[in-house]
């Protein structure tokens, strides 16, 4: 895989966009302007971006409670996302969903399901439709490593395997499910071995390295597109922030977090781009600035948008 310059810059742009969006949403949450909860994707940007850059717009993703990053990686508009997490009618879900349920059907995000593992069957079903209709589209459900212990996960991988469906199951190992370290929830070290239980390929990649992820994802996606069935892709990263913004983190210490922060995927990719002469400092700085402005505009847009009209409260209960 040798992504061209514009692809590389777009990867960088989306990773920075996620980072800035998350910093902003955490900040807004801490200041009481975002209600509910916000689960930051900070530290995992390379995983979502590496996977989604390997997808076409008409491919689909299914998300989790922690899906700001997946949506942005798939191309969602940050203004409409910000409006959604502020509960505004201009948001993707017209304020009905909030941070945990952002769906952006127009850019191929089926939605974020906040019950761990529940997005998997949806992606399997979408892939079944693709296969039945002879479409060469691919469906990609994201789950955290802890999500791989749910019954949904097992049933979904088995069904996709036996029907040879075009699914790439992305398991993002950020080491924790809320407070529980993966070592206390699973006995195997390498979660990609779980693929063997279904007779499908499993691959584990460095989830801090966007190119590594992109590479493996591209192979898995092409495999699925060719009708050769599903793949399990495990991206190894780390959750830099608490489970949700403001979460006390009694279960881990600063050193552990700091150690992983050294692998921060964004500076690392920036360095790579510079070292390999794929981009100049000026180009990357320009992206940083552009994104900062975009996020500022997104906040402004969201803030100035109205909340849904009370009279519309019963809309969308039934089609």
């Amino acid at each position: 895989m040798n992504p061209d310059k514009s692809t590389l810059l777009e990867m960088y742009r989306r990773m920075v966009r996620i980072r800035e969006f998350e910093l902003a949403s955490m900040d807004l949450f801490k200041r009481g302007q975002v209600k509910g909860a916000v689960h930051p994707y900070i530290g995992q940007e390379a995983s979502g971006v590496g996977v989604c850059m390997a997808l076409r717009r008409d491919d689909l993703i299914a998300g989790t409670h922690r899906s700001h990053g997946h949506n942005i990686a798939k191309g969602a508009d940050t203004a409409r996302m910000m409006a959604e997490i502020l509960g505004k009618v201009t948001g993707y879900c017209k304020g009905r969903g909030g941070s945990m349920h952002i769906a952006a059907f127009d850019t191929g995000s089926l939605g974020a399901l906040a019950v761990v593992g529940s997005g998997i069957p949806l992606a399997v079903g979408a892939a079944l439709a693709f296969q039945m209709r002879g479409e060469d589209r691919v469906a990609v459900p994201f789950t955290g490593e802890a999500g791989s212990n749910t019954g949904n996960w097992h049933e979904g991988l088995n069904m996709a395997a036996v029907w040879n469906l075009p699914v790439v199951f992305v398991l993002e190992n950020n080491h924790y499910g809320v407070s529980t370290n993966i070592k206390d929830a699973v006995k195997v070290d390498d979660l990609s071995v779980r693929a063997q239980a279904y007779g499908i390929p499993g691959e584990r990649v460095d989830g801090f390295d966007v190119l590594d992820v992109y590479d493996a994802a591209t192979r898995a996606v092409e495999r699925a597109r060719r009708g050769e069935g599903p793949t399990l892709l495990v991206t190894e990263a780390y959750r830099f922030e608490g489970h949700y913004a403001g979460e006390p983190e009694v279960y881990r210490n600063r050193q552990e977090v700091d150690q992983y922060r050294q692998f921060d995927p964004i500076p690392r990719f920036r360095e790579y781009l510079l070292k390999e002469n794929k981009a100049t400092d000026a180009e990357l700085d320009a992206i940083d600035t552009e994104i900062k402005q975009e996020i500022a505009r997104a906040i402004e847009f969201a803030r100035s948008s109205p909340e849904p009209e009370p009279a519309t409260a019963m809309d969308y209960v039934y089609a």
Partner: protein
Amino acid sequence: MAATERDAVSLGGAAPVMSPDLIMQVAPGTPAREMSYQEAIREALREEMTRDASVFVMGEDVGKHGGAFGVTRTLFDQFGGARVRNTPISENTIVGAATGAALVGMRPVIEIMFVDFSGLAMDQICTQAAKLRFMTGGQCQVPWVLRMPQGGGAGKSTAAQHSQSLETWFAHIPGLKVVLPSTPYDAKGLLKAAIRDNNPVIFLEHKFLYSFRGLVPDQDYVLPIGKCDVKRVGTDVTIVASGYMVWHAMLAAQMLEREGVSVEVIDVRAISPLDRETIGASARKTGRVVLVAEAVRDYGPTGEWAMAVTEQAFDYLRAPVVRVTGRNSPVPFANSIEDGVWPRTDDVLQAVRQVMAY
């Protein structure tokens, strides 16, 4: 336990297979054929699959085997394994996959072998499918139908894990529609409506009804989901019932006619969304109401129906609403104690006499 059509019939010893004449729904002269409830469901599936390529059937052993009760039998031969699709034993994922397919334009009709197993799929049914359209602000719709045989009775001895009636689990969740057809005519017309509906529809077939026969028009028709059906017009007392219980109500009504009691029978074909108006209007007319449901008593469907009566007809009531329900216990195996677990015609008769005597 996975029984087949043959069994459904042969096992149906104790309770009476009632005469089709009890419920006449096709106007004389209309071209129609007599068929069983099971055949009516199959015909609806066949016609909708023929009409619309996005309709397909999925579930455990729905292929050659024809599903737990033989309902989908022959569809596999006609439409092949891609559209009549056997699944692994994975209830939650069967429903979730149907949702995913529906989200991208398919119209899956899925079968869970017994409603009792829906306990494994409540997340995908109630927490995902029912809410997705709402949660996404109308970006999508989930047009699936989930067929589930339910109910017991008739000395079938399927015991605690294969005999329940769980309609209220679903009816309590906004976003779902919940249908319980009582006749071949209703089963066909409501299933076609359910398949064409853009919402997730829970379609609860009563196991004991599969062998019941009745007239079904030759012409294509659909019935409205969300309207009660007045199965019999009367003036003295209203019986509100759904599913198999409608037959007990009708038989009781016929017997009561001889005693000079004029009974109106309201079939709550769709218990959600609930058509309160029809129930209310009848209660205002008769002033006396009996509610009949097979589900266990506590927090079963009759409570909601009673609220509809109270809210709409309080001043007209001449007697307290009386209900006839399943016994408030798990379903036992042995006939001696299975007996009496489900309402019988006699129980309905007694309840009507009670409200009449009040």
